[in-house]
């Protein structure tokens, strides 16, 4: 065994292990954050009991789910029943392989990174359909098919929106895309805002989040494809859903929000923003210490204080590279650490917007959802690609300055959007029944 030959594989394997080990915990804590954010928007407190401020809630939930009885419907197809959640989770986690969490922290810098991610995400749909099929229940199957139909519909527009950003970047490699944004000096969200908006909406539908969660809502009489799953299998589906959320957020951050770059990375005046992570960590630590005396039990006080200390340590880790002298080892670590911070910050912000939208809007009915996907978003995303293409041609081929060229492209796309909206409103039927076959099951 030639160890030298194994060396190139060392870091990727290491990163992969870290991600796979840490991800379930992260997903659990995203669930906790969602519950806290939900509670905040609903004038409540959320989980407060298990651990100080509910910080140990995900662990309690995980333990509960693992200890639950594993129920399999008798007439279910055992192998498929067992394998379906695995497919979902695997697909979701695989997609993380190509995502750059920092300039150095990436499992695999594929030169077809984006294509890989899109393809693997589509594989996740198998997990849903097979899960519904294996449950051997009429309603589960219907829910699964609906979910699959929704996902497929919105993949199209999501893909087109991504194509728009790829045109701007010129490469499929995720690292290359971020580098392109660094080189051009502008995040692609400003060059293709309509594309970002399309991707935002499509990604909400991709992850089955409200307002597109009709297949999961209880008013549809069932819980969709997850009905027959309980305990650990259900936890796997849940994990897959939240990992998907992280994946789409990461894609959005990479493609549109500048990946691991700090805002205004190329401007020295804004170097003060380098201290933003420090301030954030200090603020969290300060909050923890302020709440420490108010905890009812001693152990919880210790816990809160420990969390505060942890935040301080993180703050130190983040700040030292900034203040270390140039050229030292610490300073060389700055891009990596800060890159990771900014990337995670953007992913977190994107997921926060997901949650925000979930608790603000009612749900779309399934036919309205499909209509929105096919009759509005797909044409719009195609128009978006055309708009960007026109803008880029004007800029690169015909020598126009960048801003007017891209603005023209955006204007064309917005024109298409306006046209689509006005046409859509004219045809919106008052009673669905008048549409006839449109109301039948997808």
């Amino acid at each position, binding site marked *: 065994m030639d160890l030298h030959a194994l060396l190139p594989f060392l870091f990727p394997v290491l990163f992969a292990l870290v991600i796979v080990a840490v991800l379930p915990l992260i997903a659990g804590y995203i669930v906790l954050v969602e519950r806290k954010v*939900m509670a905040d*928007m*609903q*004038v*409540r407190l959320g989980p407060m009991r298990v651990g100080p401020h509910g910080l140990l809630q995900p662990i309690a939930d995980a333990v509960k789910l693992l200890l639950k009885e594993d129920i399999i419907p008798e007439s279910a197809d055992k192998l498929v029943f067992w394998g379906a959640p695995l497919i979902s989770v695997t697909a979701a986690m695989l997609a993380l392989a190509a995502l750059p969490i920092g300039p150095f922290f990436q499992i695999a810098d594929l030169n077809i990174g984006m294509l890989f991610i899109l393809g693997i995400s589509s594989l996740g749909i198998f997990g849903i359909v097979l899960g519904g099929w294996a449950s051997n229940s009429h309603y589960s199957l219907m829910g699964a098919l609906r979910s699959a139909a929704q996902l497929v519909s919105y993949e199209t527009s999501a893909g087109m929106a991504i194509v728009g950003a790829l045109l701007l970047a010129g490469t499929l490699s995720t690292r290359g895309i971020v580098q392109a944004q660094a080189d051009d000096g502008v995040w692609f969200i400003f060059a293709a805002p309509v594309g970002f908006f399309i991707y935002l909406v499509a990604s909400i539908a991709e992850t089955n989040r*409200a*307002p597109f*969660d*009709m297949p999961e*809502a*209880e*008013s*549809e*009489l069932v819980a969709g494809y997850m009905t027959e799953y309980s305990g650990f299998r259900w936890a796997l589906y849940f994990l897959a859903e939240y990992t998907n959320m992280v994946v789409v957020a990461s894609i959005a951050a990479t493609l549109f929000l500048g990946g691991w770059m700090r805002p205004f990375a190329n401007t020295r005046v804004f170097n003060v923003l380098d201290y933003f992570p420090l301030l954030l960590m200090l603020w969290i630590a300060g909050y923890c210490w302020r709440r420490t005396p108010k905890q009812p039990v001693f152990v919880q006080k210790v816990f809160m204080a420990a969390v505060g200390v942890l935040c301080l340590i993180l703050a130190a880790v983040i700040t030292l590279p900034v203040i270390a002298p140039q050229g030292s080892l610490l300073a060389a670590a700055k891009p990596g650490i800060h890159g990771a911070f900014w990337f995670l910050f953007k992913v977190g912000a994107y997921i926060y917007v997901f949650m925000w939208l*979930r*608790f*603000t*809007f*009612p*749900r*779309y*009915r*399934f*036919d*309205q959802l499909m209509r929105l996907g096919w009759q509005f978003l797909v044409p719009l995303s195609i128009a978006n690609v055309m708009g960007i293409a026109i803008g880029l041609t004007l800029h690169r081929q015909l020598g126009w300055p960048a801003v007017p060229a891209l603005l023209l492209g955006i204007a064309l796309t917005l024109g298409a959007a306006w046209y689509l909206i006005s046409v859509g409103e004219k045809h*919106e*039927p*008052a*009673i*669905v*029944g*008048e549409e*006839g*076959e449109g*109301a*039948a*099951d997808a």
Partner: protein
Amino acid sequence: MSDAFDNFLPGGKANVETTVLGADEIILNMGPQHPSTHGVLRVKLRLDGEKVVGSECVIGYLHRGVEKIAEHRSYQQFAPYVDRMDYVAAVSNGLGYCEAVEKLMGVEAPPRARVIRTILTELQRIASHLFWLGTHALDIGALTPLFYCLREREEILKIFEKYCGARLTTHAFRIGGLQYEAYDELEKDTERFCRGFDKRVDEYEALLTENRIWVGRTKGIGILNAADAIAMGVTGPVLRASGVQWDIRKAMPYAAYDQYEFSIPTGKNGDTYDRYLVRLEEMRQSRKICLQAIENIPSGPILGKVGKVLKPPPGEVYHAIEAPKGELGYYIVSDGTTQPYRVRIRPPSLVNLEALDQMIRGHLVADVVAVIGTLDIVLGEVDR
């Protein structure tokens, strides 16, 4: 069980009609246990794919025989039973019953009692509509308005608790007037609530009224035109949203309603969106009535001249009030003894629910939930 399905259609055996694709219809059961049917209601839907072709409601899961019980209780003893019918708006039920018996007896509640009754009933109307709004929005998928509405409703329930000791089944009124004198802070509490309430309603409107998704889910859904509404005997906000401007508080005033100025919101199309707007506006109008009422509560006795033992002269009476859900009527027959001979309660929710079949034809299954929510039924009242 199959017999039930056989008799599903009038005239006997279920005729399986051919559907758009030539397929059979399926019968889907929204069973008595369901998160969105607001109680134990069973709806058997006949579906063509996803479209509702017909429906049948099965009720009676909450039937407690209240009308039979009434014949074995004295008039005062029966009053708490009345709260338990429409348990979301118990004060209104009590008002209707007490006023009906007062009519039967020929006594009138003193002016002070009437005004305080009005205030409490209007607060209860606001509370009932708030609860309706929260649960209706929840059914359609908006998770947040529920908590805002319940937060406001909490204030009202606190006022009730301070007044009569109970939040939900209040038994607030007595035959002849009130038993409890208004507590000292009643005016102040009501005024503080009303002062902040208008902004809250604006908040709910900001969340829902112009929201594209909300409008898409409620506009054009569950249309009931005025002629059908009158023919089906529908009352309350459902009738007003269909365009008929009729409110018992204006048509045949009771309690102290003739002293106050308020308007009756009406809708145009009779769809779910209009019913939503009508109820929102009714909340604002109720607030207006409360503010007018607390400015000038007359002083005086709170209980009219009724003895301890109530023996109304033989006869009968029908008295109806505008409950939050519609026309709540009491038909009481007395035979001269201390126990009523027959008490018939005309439940608005029962009659409104009858219109469900007509309203959901042609809509999708997902809309059934919205329409049930918009009718604002309480199964306690439907089944009694």
